[in-house]
Protein backbone atom coordinates (compact mmCIF):
# COMPACT_ATOMS: atom_id res chain seq x y z
CA UNK A 1 0.00 0.00 0.00
CA UNK A 2 1.31 3.40 -0.89
CA UNK A 3 1.69 5.58 2.20
CA UNK A 4 -0.38 8.76 2.14
CA UNK A 5 1.31 12.04 1.31
CA UNK A 6 4.27 10.41 -0.43
CA UNK A 7 4.14 12.71 -3.43
CA UNK A 8 2.34 15.83 -4.53
CA UNK A 9 2.13 17.39 -7.94
CA UNK A 10 1.94 21.06 -8.89
CA UNK A 11 1.32 21.87 -12.53
CA UNK A 12 1.77 25.32 -14.06
CA UNK A 13 0.95 26.56 -17.52
CA UNK A 14 2.75 29.78 -18.47
CA UNK A 15 2.73 31.82 -21.69
CA UNK A 16 5.72 31.30 -23.93
CA UNK A 17 6.96 34.81 -23.26
CA UNK A 18 10.16 35.78 -21.47
CA UNK A 19 9.43 37.10 -18.02
CA UNK A 20 6.94 34.36 -17.14
CA UNK A 21 9.78 32.00 -16.22
CA UNK A 22 9.84 33.98 -12.98
CA UNK A 23 6.42 32.52 -12.07
CA UNK A 24 7.74 28.98 -12.44
CA UNK A 25 10.93 29.81 -10.56
CA UNK A 26 9.08 31.21 -7.56
CA UNK A 27 6.55 28.36 -7.57
CA UNK A 28 9.37 25.80 -7.54
CA UNK A 29 11.04 27.67 -4.68
CA UNK A 30 7.80 27.65 -2.69
CA UNK A 31 7.42 23.90 -3.16
CA UNK A 32 11.05 23.28 -2.18
CA UNK A 33 10.69 25.45 0.90
CA UNK A 34 7.74 23.37 2.05
CA UNK A 35 9.83 20.23 1.54
CA UNK A 36 12.55 21.58 3.80
CA UNK A 37 15.20 22.26 1.16
CA UNK A 38 18.09 24.39 2.43
CA UNK A 39 18.30 28.02 1.24
CA UNK A 40 21.34 27.08 -0.89
CA UNK A 41 19.50 24.22 -2.61
CA UNK A 42 16.52 26.50 -3.22
CA UNK A 43 18.74 29.05 -4.96
CA UNK A 44 20.20 26.29 -7.14
CA UNK A 45 16.70 25.07 -7.96
CA UNK A 46 15.56 28.58 -8.88
CA UNK A 47 18.45 29.01 -11.29
CA UNK A 48 17.79 25.61 -12.90
CA UNK A 49 14.04 26.16 -13.30
CA UNK A 50 14.52 29.71 -14.60
CA UNK A 51 17.04 28.58 -17.22
CA UNK A 52 14.98 25.56 -18.30
CA UNK A 53 11.83 27.66 -18.70
CA UNK A 54 13.72 30.44 -20.51
CA UNK A 55 15.07 27.85 -22.95
CA UNK A 56 11.60 26.37 -23.44
CA UNK A 57 10.15 29.83 -24.09
CA UNK A 58 12.89 31.05 -26.45
CA UNK A 59 13.70 27.85 -28.32
CA UNK A 60 10.71 25.50 -27.95
CA UNK A 61 8.00 28.16 -28.02
CA UNK A 62 9.80 30.78 -30.14
CA UNK A 63 8.70 33.46 -27.62
CA UNK A 64 5.17 33.24 -28.97
CA UNK A 65 2.86 34.14 -26.07
CA UNK A 66 -0.02 32.23 -27.70
CA UNK A 67 1.97 29.07 -27.00
CA UNK A 68 2.23 27.57 -23.53
CA UNK A 69 5.05 26.08 -21.52
CA UNK A 70 3.97 23.52 -18.93
CA UNK A 71 5.94 22.94 -15.75
CA UNK A 72 5.16 19.89 -13.63
CA UNK A 73 6.68 19.79 -10.15
CA UNK A 74 6.45 16.40 -8.47
CA UNK A 75 7.63 16.30 -4.89
CA UNK A 76 8.29 13.34 -2.66
CA UNK A 77 10.10 13.02 0.63
CA UNK A 78 13.59 13.19 -0.83
CA UNK A 79 13.47 15.12 -4.06
CA UNK A 80 11.75 17.42 -6.46
CA UNK A 81 11.22 16.23 -10.02
CA UNK A 82 10.66 19.03 -12.52
CA UNK A 83 9.36 18.44 -16.03
CA UNK A 84 9.32 21.39 -18.46
CA UNK A 85 7.27 20.82 -21.62
CA UNK A 86 7.32 23.16 -24.58
CA UNK A 87 5.40 23.14 -27.90
CA UNK A 88 8.51 22.14 -29.86
CA UNK A 89 7.89 24.63 -32.67
CA UNK A 90 11.41 26.03 -32.57
CA UNK A 91 14.92 24.69 -32.42
CA UNK A 92 15.70 21.09 -31.60
CA UNK A 93 17.43 20.47 -28.27
CA UNK A 94 21.22 20.39 -28.49
CA UNK A 95 22.84 16.97 -28.60
CA UNK A 96 25.62 17.92 -26.19
CA UNK A 97 26.32 20.50 -23.51
CA UNK A 98 29.76 22.08 -23.41
CA UNK A 99 31.28 24.14 -20.64
CA UNK A 100 31.52 27.82 -21.55
CA UNK A 101 34.94 29.16 -22.50
CA UNK A 102 34.66 32.67 -21.11
CA UNK A 103 38.13 33.61 -22.30
CA UNK A 104 37.12 32.76 -25.88
CA UNK A 105 33.94 34.79 -25.44
CA UNK A 106 35.80 37.81 -24.08
CA UNK A 107 38.38 37.57 -26.86
CA UNK A 108 35.60 37.33 -29.48
CA UNK A 109 36.42 33.80 -30.60
CA UNK A 110 33.12 32.38 -29.27
CA UNK A 111 29.69 34.01 -29.30
CA UNK A 112 28.60 35.37 -25.93
CA UNK A 113 26.12 33.40 -23.87
CA UNK A 114 25.09 29.79 -24.29
CA UNK A 115 25.41 29.21 -20.56
CA UNK A 116 21.89 28.06 -19.71
CA UNK A 117 22.07 24.29 -20.11
CA UNK A 118 25.54 24.12 -18.64
CA UNK A 119 24.41 26.11 -15.61
CA UNK A 120 21.43 23.80 -15.11
CA UNK A 121 23.76 20.79 -15.06
CA UNK A 122 25.80 22.44 -12.31
CA UNK A 123 22.72 23.19 -10.19
CA UNK A 124 20.71 19.94 -10.17
CA UNK A 125 21.45 16.25 -9.67
CA UNK A 126 19.99 15.07 -12.98
CA UNK A 127 19.00 16.94 -16.15
CA UNK A 128 18.11 15.54 -19.56
CA UNK A 129 15.78 15.90 -22.53
CA UNK A 130 12.95 13.40 -22.86
CA UNK A 131 11.42 12.44 -26.19
CA UNK A 132 7.75 13.32 -26.35
CA UNK A 133 6.38 11.44 -29.36
CA UNK A 134 2.79 11.88 -28.24
CA UNK A 135 2.64 15.67 -28.37
CA UNK A 136 5.56 16.32 -30.69
CA UNK A 137 6.89 18.88 -28.25
CA UNK A 138 10.07 18.81 -26.21
CA UNK A 139 10.40 17.82 -22.59
CA UNK A 140 13.24 18.58 -20.25
CA UNK A 141 13.48 16.79 -16.93
CA UNK A 142 15.43 17.83 -13.86
CA UNK A 143 15.74 16.13 -10.50
CA UNK A 144 17.09 17.87 -7.44
CA UNK A 145 17.48 16.08 -4.13
CA UNK A 146 16.66 17.80 -0.88
CA UNK A 147 20.14 17.10 0.41
CA UNK A 148 23.13 17.27 -1.94
CA UNK A 149 24.18 13.76 -2.92
CA UNK A 150 21.00 12.15 -1.62
CA UNK A 151 20.60 10.33 -4.90
CA UNK A 152 23.95 8.61 -4.55
CA UNK A 153 24.69 5.77 -2.17
CA UNK A 154 28.03 7.23 -1.07
CA UNK A 155 26.33 10.19 0.51
CA UNK A 156 23.06 8.58 1.48
CA UNK A 157 23.81 8.96 5.16
CA UNK A 158 23.94 12.75 4.99
CA UNK A 159 21.78 13.98 7.82
CA UNK A 160 18.24 14.97 6.96
CA UNK A 161 16.01 17.19 8.96
CA UNK A 162 12.78 19.16 8.84
CA UNK A 163 10.76 16.54 6.94
CA UNK A 164 10.12 13.25 8.67
CA UNK A 165 11.23 10.16 6.84
CA UNK A 166 8.58 8.83 4.48
CA UNK A 167 6.01 11.58 4.61
CA UNK A 168 5.58 15.18 3.64
CA UNK A 169 4.52 17.81 6.15
CA UNK A 170 0.79 17.75 6.89
CA UNK A 171 0.21 21.22 5.50
CA UNK A 172 1.40 20.10 2.08
Amino acid sequence: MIPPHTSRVVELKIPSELGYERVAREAAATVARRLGFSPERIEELKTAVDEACSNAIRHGGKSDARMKVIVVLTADETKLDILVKDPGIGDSPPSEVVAPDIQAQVEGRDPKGGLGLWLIRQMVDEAYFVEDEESGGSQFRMIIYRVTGEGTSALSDVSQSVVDEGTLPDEW
Partner: protein
Amino acid sequence: MNGEIRVTVRFEKGATIIDLAGDVTTFAEEAIHKAYQDASSDGARNIIFNFREGDYINSAGIAILIGIVTEARKRDQRLLMTGLSSHFQKIFRMVGLTQYADLYPTLEDALASLDVEYQGNETG
Protein backbone atom coordinates in the same frame (compact mmCIF):
# COMPACT_ATOMS: atom_id res chain seq x y z
CA MET B 1 5.99 40.53 -17.26
CA ASN B 2 9.10 42.44 -18.33
CA GLY B 3 11.45 42.57 -15.37
CA GLU B 4 12.15 46.12 -14.44
CA ILE B 5 15.59 47.24 -13.42
CA ARG B 6 16.72 50.62 -12.21
CA VAL B 7 20.29 51.49 -13.16
CA THR B 8 21.96 54.63 -11.86
CA VAL B 9 25.50 55.96 -12.12
CA ARG B 10 27.27 57.93 -9.41
CA PHE B 11 30.81 58.84 -8.44
CA GLU B 12 32.47 58.29 -5.09
CA LYS B 13 36.09 58.35 -3.93
CA GLY B 14 37.45 58.26 -7.46
CA ALA B 15 35.30 55.33 -8.56
CA THR B 16 32.28 55.14 -10.82
CA ILE B 17 29.49 53.19 -9.17
CA ILE B 18 26.74 51.62 -11.27
CA ASP B 19 23.88 50.71 -8.92
CA LEU B 20 21.62 47.92 -10.14
CA ALA B 21 18.21 47.52 -8.48
CA GLY B 22 16.16 44.73 -10.03
CA ASP B 23 16.64 41.47 -11.84
CA VAL B 24 19.55 41.23 -14.28
CA THR B 25 18.00 39.44 -17.25
CA THR B 26 17.68 40.06 -20.96
CA PHE B 27 15.41 43.04 -20.20
CA ALA B 28 18.29 44.81 -18.41
CA GLU B 29 20.65 44.83 -21.39
CA GLU B 30 19.91 48.29 -22.73
CA ALA B 31 19.96 50.00 -19.32
CA ILE B 32 23.21 48.36 -18.24
CA HIS B 33 25.00 49.09 -21.51
CA LYS B 34 23.84 52.70 -21.47
CA ALA B 35 25.09 53.17 -17.90
CA TYR B 36 28.43 51.59 -18.76
CA GLN B 37 28.84 53.67 -21.93
CA ASP B 38 27.96 56.86 -20.05
CA ALA B 39 30.52 56.02 -17.37
CA SER B 40 33.19 55.17 -19.95
CA SER B 41 32.62 58.31 -21.97
CA ASP B 42 33.26 60.24 -18.76
CA GLY B 43 36.65 58.56 -18.53
CA ALA B 44 35.93 56.06 -15.75
CA ARG B 45 38.91 53.87 -14.84
CA ASN B 46 37.46 51.96 -11.88
CA ILE B 47 33.86 50.84 -12.28
CA ILE B 48 31.92 49.16 -9.50
CA PHE B 49 28.77 47.22 -10.39
CA ASN B 50 26.79 47.38 -7.16
CA PHE B 51 24.16 44.64 -7.17
CA ARG B 52 21.29 44.49 -4.70
CA GLU B 53 21.31 41.24 -2.76
CA GLY B 54 18.07 39.39 -3.32
CA ASP B 55 17.76 40.36 -6.97
CA TYR B 56 17.97 37.63 -9.56
CA ILE B 57 20.59 37.15 -12.29
CA ASN B 58 20.13 34.60 -15.07
CA SER B 59 22.38 33.40 -17.88
CA ALA B 60 21.21 36.22 -20.16
CA GLY B 61 22.29 38.66 -17.45
CA ILE B 62 25.65 36.94 -17.16
CA ALA B 63 26.05 37.24 -20.95
CA ILE B 64 25.44 40.99 -20.62
CA LEU B 65 28.20 41.18 -18.01
CA ILE B 66 30.54 39.17 -20.26
CA GLY B 67 29.91 41.85 -22.87
CA ILE B 68 30.83 44.53 -20.33
CA VAL B 69 34.07 42.82 -19.30
CA THR B 70 34.96 42.50 -22.99
CA GLU B 71 34.59 46.27 -23.41
CA ALA B 72 36.35 47.06 -20.14
CA ARG B 73 39.31 44.91 -21.13
CA LYS B 74 39.72 46.90 -24.36
CA ARG B 75 39.56 50.16 -22.42
CA ASP B 76 41.92 48.96 -19.69
CA GLN B 77 39.30 49.63 -17.03
CA ARG B 78 39.12 47.80 -13.72
CA LEU B 79 35.78 46.21 -12.87
CA LEU B 80 34.61 45.45 -9.36
CA MET B 81 31.35 43.79 -8.34
CA THR B 82 29.64 44.06 -4.98
CA GLY B 83 26.43 43.07 -3.22
CA LEU B 84 26.11 39.63 -4.80
CA SER B 85 24.55 36.84 -2.76
CA SER B 86 26.73 33.80 -2.03
CA HIS B 87 24.78 31.90 -4.73
CA PHE B 88 25.65 34.37 -7.45
CA GLN B 89 29.23 34.76 -6.21
CA LYS B 90 29.52 30.99 -6.68
CA ILE B 91 28.04 31.16 -10.18
CA PHE B 92 30.31 34.04 -11.21
CA ARG B 93 33.31 31.98 -10.06
CA MET B 94 32.07 28.87 -11.86
CA VAL B 95 31.53 30.76 -15.11
CA GLY B 96 34.92 32.46 -14.85
CA LEU B 97 33.78 36.08 -14.56
CA THR B 98 36.11 36.51 -11.59
CA GLN B 99 39.07 36.35 -13.98
CA TYR B 100 37.96 39.76 -15.22
CA ALA B 101 36.18 41.40 -12.28
CA ASP B 102 37.01 41.48 -8.58
CA LEU B 103 34.21 40.54 -6.21
CA TYR B 104 33.76 42.28 -2.86
CA PRO B 105 31.05 41.60 -0.30
CA THR B 106 30.08 45.26 0.08
CA LEU B 107 30.49 48.55 -1.72
CA GLU B 108 32.51 49.84 1.22
CA ASP B 109 34.97 46.93 0.85
CA ALA B 110 35.39 47.68 -2.86
CA LEU B 111 35.93 51.41 -2.25
CA ALA B 112 38.41 50.63 0.52
CA SER B 113 40.41 48.39 -1.84
CA LEU B 114 40.64 51.19 -4.37
CA ASP B 115 41.59 53.67 -1.66
CA VAL B 116 44.42 51.41 -0.51
CA GLU B 117 45.66 50.97 -4.07
CA TYR B 118 45.44 54.68 -4.73
CA GLN B 119 47.48 55.45 -1.63
CA GLY B 120 49.94 52.73 -2.61
CA ASN B 121 50.42 54.34 -6.01
CA GLU B 122 50.92 57.75 -4.40
CA THR B 123 53.70 56.54 -2.16
CA GLY B 124 55.18 54.15 -4.72
